């Protein structure tokens, strides 16, 4: 029988995969992919909690997270294209102008 703990472990696993991506990638497009993984992992957790406690709030929260992800991609990709036109690279190291 699949319990809530199974789903939470899966959520934690996927979140860890996304965090590994955020930590080891330096390409900005790949960083966007990793943030999508993080958001999806959290969505699974919300829906699982919503199912096992019989409460619909979790599903609605996941719905709003999907809306936020969609607008994040629209704005982020626009900025990324602008940066690529200016610098010819979407690498994080090219964003380092102040050499801090």
């Amino acid at each position, binding site marked *: 029988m699949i319990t809530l703990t*199974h789903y939470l472990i899966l959520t934690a696993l996927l979140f860890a995969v996304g*965090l590994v991506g955020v930590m080891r*990638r*330096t390409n900005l497009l*790949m960083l966007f992919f990793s943030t*999508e993984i993080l958001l999806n992992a959290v969505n699974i957790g919300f829906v699982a909690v*919503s199912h096992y406690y019989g409460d619909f709030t979790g*599903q*609605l929260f996941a719905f709003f997270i999907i809306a936020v992800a969609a607008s994040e991609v629209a704005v982020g990709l626009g900025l990324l294209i602008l940066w690529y036109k200016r610098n010819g690279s979407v690498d994080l190291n090219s964003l380092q102008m102040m050499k801090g």
Partner: protein
Amino acid sequence: MYEVIAFYIFSILTVGMFGIVVMSKNALYAMSALAGGMIFISGFFFILDAEFLGVVQIVVYSGAIMALYAFGMMFFDTTRDVSEKMRSKKIAYTLSTLSAILIVVILCMPLVSENIQASYPAIENVGNVQMVGLILFTKYLVPFELAAIMLLVAMISGIVLASKRMDEHLAIEEDDLEDIKELR
């Protein structure tokens, strides 16, 4: 029984796909694996009786967001391998510690919240889509409208940011036109 089999199959497939996304050096492979992983995640939503979210996941993530990424990739050089250089180990260690603490907190949550009460419990003989609509348009009407405004703002900003001086980059330059005339 089928639920258990489906859960494990979808878990292995999702973790594998997202592993490819994180580890692959090719941007196109990463994008395709991400699209696959999104569809497998919608399988979890169907197992958990959240049909509406499952459909939204397929339509919005695998449809809209991946199409947007594919469109954005036309601007970037995707045939070249993604360069990876780890510079500071300190940040990686700090983030690893924080994520480990976070995972422990996530897994302990059901233990400390035993006496949790459902604020919007499911009603008998009402389907998932109908129930989501009922709650979305009564209790969550204001956040819903705000999300609509947010999506509108995001759409306008995406158009403005990506299309600014796009005609200069896509149109043939005057010099190129003269070259073509000389060739003829």
